């Protein structure tokens, strides 16, 4: 039996307390009205110095900043962006995107009185002529009043800054929830595949998935706060988006409202989370019953349960990815997104199994786990890291290659506003693992695996950051106190729940039909 060390307990509680304080700080320091935003932006333009602020007076400087966020506005579908588009009577999608780039060009023209394409953001890569055409069409309604534009921009930034602590919490919450889901999926696969090497690790995996019920509840509460309009993370939830009479009306979102509506969205979430938790609960219970049984009936039950769960999982996982992540960008869609999200948390889950196993092994609790088991886990870490990269690249390259405006804004905002996290995630999740874990001997060395595992986990946190932040806070992102605190809080909770759960049952299953093979597994 494993007993949790008091040090680990204190450590995780400290993490939670520090995290909570930081989360509170994040919410308290979020700006409450436009005036605060103005002050923040003024301070920022001083901080960044040069180009913008000096050449123009205050209001134009803001207008120019509006260029930078314009691309995002179109894509994140903030109400104000659509207000102007709606006025201009823009209905079809392709036109919609041009309107945004056109707006950028137009405001540039009117404010700086010179067409300076070099200063325009990357949206200027679209043919310049088109810009001007659309700019001419939209110049009047959109920029009749430079002051209104300025106010609209401030409100836009206000929403982004108010979203920041929420989004930080959301990223960490979904990240840890999905890590335990990745472990659960791995567990089910091992059961169904009748793997001969992994039964000695089943109790470790079950311990990690003990976070699932806790994480699920917190996540559901978070979803309810979104549905209750306590935050603006999901733009399609905003009032009046589906109402043609409202100034917030968005024809595209209205067209998707058959799927993207709050009750249906919440019902789906409850069904998925309930399904996952039921499998986790009963597979654990039946697995423990197998220890005391005299035949293999329980084992067969878990086998059937796992097969059923995997079918449910792959369907629910795909829809989950649309609901909880892709719908943050309701104007954008990608068909392999579900798989991409899956690969991201699956590799994180396997990495967590490996690291928890290494921890327990070095503490002397896993007698029968040898370097061959660790080696196998490391191979999975390596292989699924490459699989993640494959999906990441397939999604990116297809969209980059075709460059259809409707889809490509997703990557333009990420490459322009999130340059370092965007490419950094590829380096951390692909280049480092492939170079470190390709060596057979390295896959058996504890400190190398802990190092590679940490890189992978941080890399996949950043991956989720990249998926969620651009749609919620746009170019106002920063990995500061709210973000780090949220991670610390959930990390502390995760450690506490997981290591407490590990004390609840012997770490070695007794009567698993494959346990003997697993104990003598040697590669």
């Amino acid at each position, binding site marked *: 039996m494993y007993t949790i060390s008091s040090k680990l307990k204190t450590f995780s509680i400290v993490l939670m307390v520090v995290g909570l304080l930081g989360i509170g700080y994040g919410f308290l320091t979020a700006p409450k009205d436009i005036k605060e935003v103005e002050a923040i932006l003024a301070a920022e333009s001083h901080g960044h110095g040069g180009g913008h602020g000096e050449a123009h007076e205050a209001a134009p400087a803001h207008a120019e900043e509006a260029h930078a966020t314009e691309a995002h506005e179109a894509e994140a579908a903030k109400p104000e962006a659509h207000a102007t588009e709606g006025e201009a009577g823009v209905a079809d999608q392709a036109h919609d995107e041009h309107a945004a780039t056109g707006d950028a060009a137009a405001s540039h023209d009117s404010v700086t009185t010179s067409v300076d394409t070099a200063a325009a953001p990357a949206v200027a890569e679209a043919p310049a002529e088109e810009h001007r055409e659309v700019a001419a069409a939209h110049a009047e309604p959109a920029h009749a009043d430079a002051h209104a534009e300025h106010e609209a921009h401030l409100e836009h930034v206000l929403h982004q800054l108010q979203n920041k602590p929420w989004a930080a919490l959301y990223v960490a919450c979904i990240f840890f929830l999905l890590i335990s889901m990745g472990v659960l999926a791995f567990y089910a696969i091992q059961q169904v595949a009748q793997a001969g090497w992994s039964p000695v690790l089943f109790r470790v995996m079950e311990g990690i998935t003990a976070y699932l019920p806790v994480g699920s509840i917190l996540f559901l509460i978070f979803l309810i706060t979104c549905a209750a309009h306590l935050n603006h993370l999901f733009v399609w939830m905003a009032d009046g988006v589906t109402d043609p009479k409202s100034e917030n009306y968005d024809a595209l979102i209205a067209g998707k409202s058959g799927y993207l509506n709050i009750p249906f969205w919440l019902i789906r979430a409850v069904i998925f989370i309930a399904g996952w938790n039921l499998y986790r609960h009963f597979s654990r219970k039946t697995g423990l019953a197998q220890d005391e049984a005299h035949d293999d009936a329980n084992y067969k039950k878990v086998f059937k349960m796992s097969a059923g769960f995997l079918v449910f999982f792959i369907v629910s996982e795909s829809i989950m990815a649309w609901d909880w992540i892709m719908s943050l960008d309701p104007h954008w869609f990608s068909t392999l997104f579900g798989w991409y999200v899956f690969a991201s948390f699956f590799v994180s889950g396997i990495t967590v199994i490996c690291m928890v196993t290494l921890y327990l092994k070095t503490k002397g609790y896993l007698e029968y786990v040898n370097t061959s088991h660790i080696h196998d886990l490391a191979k999975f870490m390596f292989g699924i890291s490459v699989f993640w990269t494959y999906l990441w*690249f397939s999604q*990116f*390259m297809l969209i*980059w*290659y075709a*460059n259809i405006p409707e889809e490509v804004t997703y990557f333009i905002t990420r490459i322009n506003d999130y340059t370092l996290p965007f490419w950094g995630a590829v380096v951390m999740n692909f280049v480092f693992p492939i170079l470190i874990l*390709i060596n*057979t001997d390295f896959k058996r060395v504890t400190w190398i695996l802990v190092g590679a595992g940490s890189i992978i986990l941080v890399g996949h946190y950043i991956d989720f950051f990249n998926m969620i932040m651009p749609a919620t806070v746009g170019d106002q992102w920063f990995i500061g106190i709210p973000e780090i605190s949220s991670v610390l809080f959930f990390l502390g909770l995760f450690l506490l729940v997981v290591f407490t759960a590990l004390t609840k049952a012997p770490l070695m299953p007794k009567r698993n039909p494959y346990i003997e093979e697993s104990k003598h597994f040697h590669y």
Partner: protein
Amino acid sequence: MSTTNKVLHAIYNDDDVLMDAVKKTRAAHHHIEEVFTPFPVHGLDKAMGIAPTRLAICAFIYGCTGLSVATWMMNNIMISDWPQDIGGKPSFSYIQNMPAFVPVMFEMTVFFAAHLMVITFYMRSRLWPFKAAENPDVRTTDDHFLMEVAVKGDESEMVSFFEKTGAVEVKVIEKH
């Protein structure tokens, strides 16, 4: 010793017996020249004390070579030599158009790694078409295992040693 090049062929009909015999032979400090088996015997190389293969390291280097060749080739053709505008793809620098080159870079890496490694394997194992087979006993390709040991010192003592290891047949032959 140096005056003779006699070898002893101990033939077994079970891989477990063979593994045992190999361990005993090593313990008795007889030099194993070669072991012929009809199929891979797991752990035989370790029992014989053969150094691990470096083929994987070769493959890694070949892969790097392939990646370099692909990068150089695509850069030379698409960027340096004739940077045409093909469907609006930016050909101003390699990095700008890199996503389009990645499939080529990947395939070339795999191609070089795989093929050059296979060729390295053939060369190191001295395998090629029309090569004369080096099989000392035709049964070793079917269901027998043969251990070839250099004869040193007392020949009859060695024969009785190998008979005790479970060999179904022990022969001493002059090697040319």
